[in-house]
């Protein structure tokens, strides 16, 4: 992704154009009921789609300098973090807040540069800390899981 200047912006503009086309097409398929106001539910989305298309076109034709993309390893790092966060969201109702949060925050802390063992300790501390402050003190409802915490 480190090609000539402005490649990223051209890609962004291209994606924006496709998105705008899709958006406008979807807008035209919105059903209109019998009783409707003069504008109806389609017009404003179509205007937005046109704004998206025009701005995408300008971005594509006049790209900024190329941003500094991270190396492929770091991209994988971010992708892995995303996977962990999605897994965390799904695991919350299944295993409860404390266990899921301890694992997820230990992972993040480890990837941000803590050594493995201290990271586990940090994860457990963060999970318990949030549980105490938000659930026991502030009374927020957290995911309960099979053990009730």
């Amino acid at each position: 992704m480190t090609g000539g200047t402005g490649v990223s912006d051209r890609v962004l503009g291209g994606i924006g154009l496709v998105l705008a086309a899709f958006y406008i097409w979807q807008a035209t398929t919105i059903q209109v009921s019998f009783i409707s106001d003069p504008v109806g539910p389609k017009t404003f989305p179509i205007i937005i789609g046109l704004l998206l298309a025009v701005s995408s076109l300008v971005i594509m034709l006049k790209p900024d300098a190329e941003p500094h993309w991270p190396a492929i390893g770091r991209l994988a790092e971010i992708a892995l973090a995303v996977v962990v966060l999605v897994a965390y969201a799904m695991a919350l109702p299944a295993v409860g807040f404390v266990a899921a949060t301890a694992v997820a925050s230990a992972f993040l802390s480890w990837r941000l540069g803590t050594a493995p063992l201290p990271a586990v300790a940090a994860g457990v501390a963060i999970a318990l800390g949030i549980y105490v402050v938000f659930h026991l003190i502030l009374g927020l409802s957290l995911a309960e899981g099979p053990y009730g915490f």
Partner: protein
Amino acid sequence: MEALSSLADGFAVALTFQNLGLALIGCFLGTIIGALPGLGPSNGVAILIPLAFSLGLGPTPALILLTSVYYGAMYGGRISSILLNIPGDEPALMTTLDGYPMAKQGRAGEALAISGVASFVGSFFATIGLVFLAPLLVQVALLFGPAEYFALFALAFATLGGVSSTNQAKAAFATALGLGIAMVGVDGQTGVPRFSFGEVHLYDGIDFLVAIVGLFALSEVFIFLEHRGDGSGEGKQADVGIGRITPSFAVLRRCTPTMARSTVLGFVAGVLPGAGASLGSFLAYTSEKAVADKEGTFGKGDPRGVAAPEAGNNAAAGGALVPMLALGVPGSGTTAVLLAMLLALNITPGPLLFQQNPDVVWGLIAALFIANFMLLAMNIPMVGLFVRVLMIPPKFLMPIVAMVSFVGIYGISGSTFDLMVMVVFGVLGWVLRKLEVPLVPVILGILLGNLMESNLRRAMTISDGDWTVLFASPLALLLWAIAVVGFVLPILVGKRIKRRMHMTEEEPGGATTTD
């Protein structure tokens, strides 16, 4: 004055045990949020909104809590600017210019004290300005019909990039993205689903809070993951002595005219749409340098160079509340977040707010006065406490930010689907930040899209489908004219101003270290 008697009623609302406690907590959390690089006022407030809901706070207490955080963040931003040469948030950028040199000379305590006093002066007088200006603006706002409101929304989006915007196409792109996302869900007027692709979860639309916490807070975590180990954004400890934390009277007197001028400039910058606190501190610093820097000491540790931007950005923060409360149209990311919370509590800001819920408005303003005194107390004698908080390294802080984001969103809806959407917004926020697409228009679009559309449709219903109604009144024409100028002007001068603010690169926490 009618405003003063309303304000007296406001103090009766604010001076309850609960509200005082919330203001205190808000100020404390806000100062920490502002001080920590990587947690700005908008994402700080955004993470705390779910908390305000889950605690079941009423509109006034919730608003008091969150605006105290907002004011506190404006105070806190200066701490890391002075000690670490890393602005705690974007508006504190200018404070590094003289604050860090002062710290290197062993006068960090003095710099912290002066900037604390300047912050107090800026926000105190801006709050007074709010008392008098907001009711006046309400009188104007009462003349607004749906067509004028539609033009006003257009104006807000057109000017959002601010004069420092370098790429208006990207600002427009971000606006379209936000407005487009707002359209998802069942149309409020006809009841037909739009862009929901048969997914039941999408019928209610995409929750603004989910979007903003993802875009701001989670994307910050990804930025830190990306930059781990390369030094930027790490909490490097300042090896500078703090010195005494009391401002000397002579220095304060020397800074008084600076603070006065900077407060006025900052307040005006805050009230104007699309300017906000960053521009307020920038204007205050540069004009002060032009007016007062006769010996060429600015940039080398001049106390006035610390007082000016801090008075300016705090005054701008107060000024930004004027259009948010009086018109219901926010001009910055953080005021947008505050507006979102009001809307979620079924309170619509704008002229009617002053008539229907005067307790909310005036209770809030009174609480801001009280919060200011609390912040002054926290930020001068107790500043050492916050300095210690700054030493929390990101490797522990960022997991906490991520987890608290999840807790907040889960606490509102209990829905795994919303958490997934939040992660998607986190990734989107990271990509957009890499491409320098501004995020504030996205969130403002999501927030205001439906209001904007319903004003358009109401105007058209009244005119029975005649589009010229949008340009029919002089007021509407004026608003359109400002919108056009506000959008075109940055294309002509934006690059130059941006360069002078030397924010060439968005690093973690919006910080660019300059030596």
